[in-house]
């Protein structure tokens, strides 16, 4: 059963401006982790801003738990918890005071709120620092508290907007494990990210966005089938010249797509074994030295490259 329904959603910030979200339609099933994957500027944050009732759409509609985000915003807000990308915390309040305040804003109170606060402090390993001001916390601790606030009241749908940006690997691991644990208890999750690995690890289904549009939707297996048996061949160069090499290999036999980014040449190939010698020869012809070679099985990076002609990190 669909818990979230999005139909023809659109958002234009200025009447003659570009569409940040363009004719978006998808469902999120109850109890699943659904990821929106795409590069910066793809429209992921705008999409979840509309679903969380922060922004009104300029086209289409969205429903959460059967309630329209436009006509029944309060009903929608009671069902959702939002973990924003920015750290939305009061630095001069303690961790406990932050949780108490945001819990009150969710309508919690009394013993229920006290229990919630202690539970979330324990889950985030912040119990010992509960009385300390947030301004004294590390970045990872702030991220955990930011997450805990979004989970107050155990909402039916948790929306996380790129929660692992600019944090250390340990904190990232913590958040990913927590999302999986929360989902195991039945919480529906809408997760946005530009990290392919996170989407692959967490998601039951993934929607790939680019320039405001949903360009692919499905499970990981369904999405990788879009690119067939193609592999990704990644060449890392000793020096500048990646673009020239990518251009030289663009029409090589067995190469379906070639692009260059950050000193890497990324090739979508039918067989890495057949294309590699050709790539080495062309690099030598251009006076370039290949430092490392990596061969990847089809993944979301490949899918994105196949669909857009660009790497996910572009």
């Amino acid at each position, binding site marked *: 059963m669909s818990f979230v329904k999005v139909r023809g959603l659109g958002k234009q910030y200025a009447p003659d401006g570009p569409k940040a979200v363009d004719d978006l339609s998808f469902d999120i099933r109850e109890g699943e982790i659904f990821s929106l994957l795409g590069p910066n500027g793809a429209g992921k944050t705008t999409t979840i801003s509309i679903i969380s009732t922060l922004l009104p759409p300029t086209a289409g509609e969205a429903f959460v738990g059967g309630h329209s985000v436009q006509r029944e915003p309060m009903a929608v*807000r009671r069902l959702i918890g939002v973990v*924003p990308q920015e750290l939305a*915390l009061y630095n001069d309040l303690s961790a406990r005071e932050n949780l108490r305040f945001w819990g009150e804003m969710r309508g919690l109170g009394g013993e229920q709120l006290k229990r919630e606060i202690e539970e979330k402090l324990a889950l985030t390993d912040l119990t010992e620092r509960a009385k300390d001001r947030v301004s004294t916390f590390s970045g990872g601790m702030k991220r955990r508290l930011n997450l805990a606030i979004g989970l107050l009241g155990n909402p039916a749908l948790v929306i996380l907007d790129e929660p692992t940006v600019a944090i250390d690997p340990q904190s990232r691991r913590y958040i990913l494990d927590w999302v999986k644990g929360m989902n195991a208890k039945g919480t529906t999750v809408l997760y946005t990210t530009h990290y392919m690995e996170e989407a692959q690890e967490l998601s039951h289904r993934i929607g790939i966005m680019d320039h405001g549009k949903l360009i692919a939707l499905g499970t990981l297996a369904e999405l990788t089938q879009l690119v067939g048996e193609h592999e990704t061949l990644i060449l890392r160069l000793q020096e500048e010249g990646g673009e020239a090499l990518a251009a030289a290999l663009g029409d090589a036999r067995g190469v379906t797509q070639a692009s260059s980014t950050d000193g890497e040449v990324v090739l979508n190939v039918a067989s890495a074994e057949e294309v590699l010698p050709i790539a080495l020869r062309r690099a030598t012809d251009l006076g370039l030295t290949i430092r490392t070679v990596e061969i990847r099985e089809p993944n979301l990076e490949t899918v994105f490259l196949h669909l857009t002609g660009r790497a996910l990190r572009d």
Partner: protein
Amino acid sequence: MRKLRVLALKEVRLAFRDVGAILTMLATPLALTLAIAAAFGGGGSAPIADIPVLVLNQDAGEMSSTLVEALLSDQLADLLEPEVVTDEAAARARVEADQVAALVVIPPDFSARLLPMGGTELRVESEGAPFQLTAAQMQAWASNPQDGDTEESPAVVEIYASPQWRISAAVVKAVVAEVLERMHLVVRGVGSTVGRLILAGGMDITNQEQLLQVGQSIGEQLVLGAGNGEALLRLEVVSTRRAFSWLDYSAASMAILFLMFSATSGGRTLLIEREGGTLPRLLVSPTPAVTILVGKMAGVALTGILQVMILWGASSLIGAYWGEPLAVVVTIVALVLAATGVGALIAAWAKSPQQAGAIGTAVTLVAAALSGSFFPRMNLPVWVRQVSLLTPNAWGIELFADLQAGDALVNVLPMLGGLLLLTVAYYVVALIGFRRQFE
């Protein structure tokens, strides 16, 4: 209501945890109050002195000159700072501009009305027709001067007073009245003495010149107290209204100034929360936007009330007087609501926290300068005082000036009503701006 309370208390907690804010809200205004009071003098009542007063003598007679001399005398030198003028229009303009406390206008018929026998001829007007007294009539008048006094209306001296110099003008009026009373008694005394001299045969009633010389001589001695060492006036000023005090004035004006800083800064925090992410998080919580906004401003107002209450208490400990406690509390609440309205208005129309901060600082400082935060408001030009009534500062300074002078709450209710109207106007404009921002 619960969420409103939670939002408001959050603001208060955040405000009082900020060390820099505490310095701005409390320590700095107290320090400035002490500095200003120390520089200009005075806790408690200051003596009334050097009251600027203009004197316009339209009369050519001796009695008016005597009145002028009395006002210019050494006995009144500490109390009055008189200036003799000739241009009536200019003098009245100076009073209206509150440059002087009052204008004393001695009318053209002052001497004639005060001393009907003035001039080279004894003349008394009765029923509009002049006649000369017969010897018998003079005899009768000498026995009882009041019978010969057929003047129907007294000498009228006009005191044209400035409303901003209420106490000083009252003192001038009292002084002039006292001098006139003395002069009237002297005139009666002279008349009686001269009459008795005539009756006793010591003076020739037909010798007008002699009569005048003797009369003047007696009068001068009586009026000026020459030869007997008596001072013309022993003036004891008793005022039921508290005199101006720099400590009182600066305690209130500094509190108002720094309240404005706090209120405009508090409004700015709404924009900071918008950029920082806490406002969007609030807006996606099951809390109506109007509750969020009202709760935020209620918190700013509550912080302002606490701030001014603390300043009231602290300055009172060092001798500052703010007025009747109930009236002070009501005034503080009204003033804080108005200041918060200014903060909300700026936040509603500014594009960023930085812009709101710059505008808030500019508005606060300009309002303070126009309203008389740093020097007595009464010294400012009239047009400046009128323009400044667009700001809470001016209303607050006026209100506290009245309360400190001794007015009760009921006396300042009209002014509180005016402040309330201004507050409503602030919030209406702010609401229009917020709707633009958040819709």
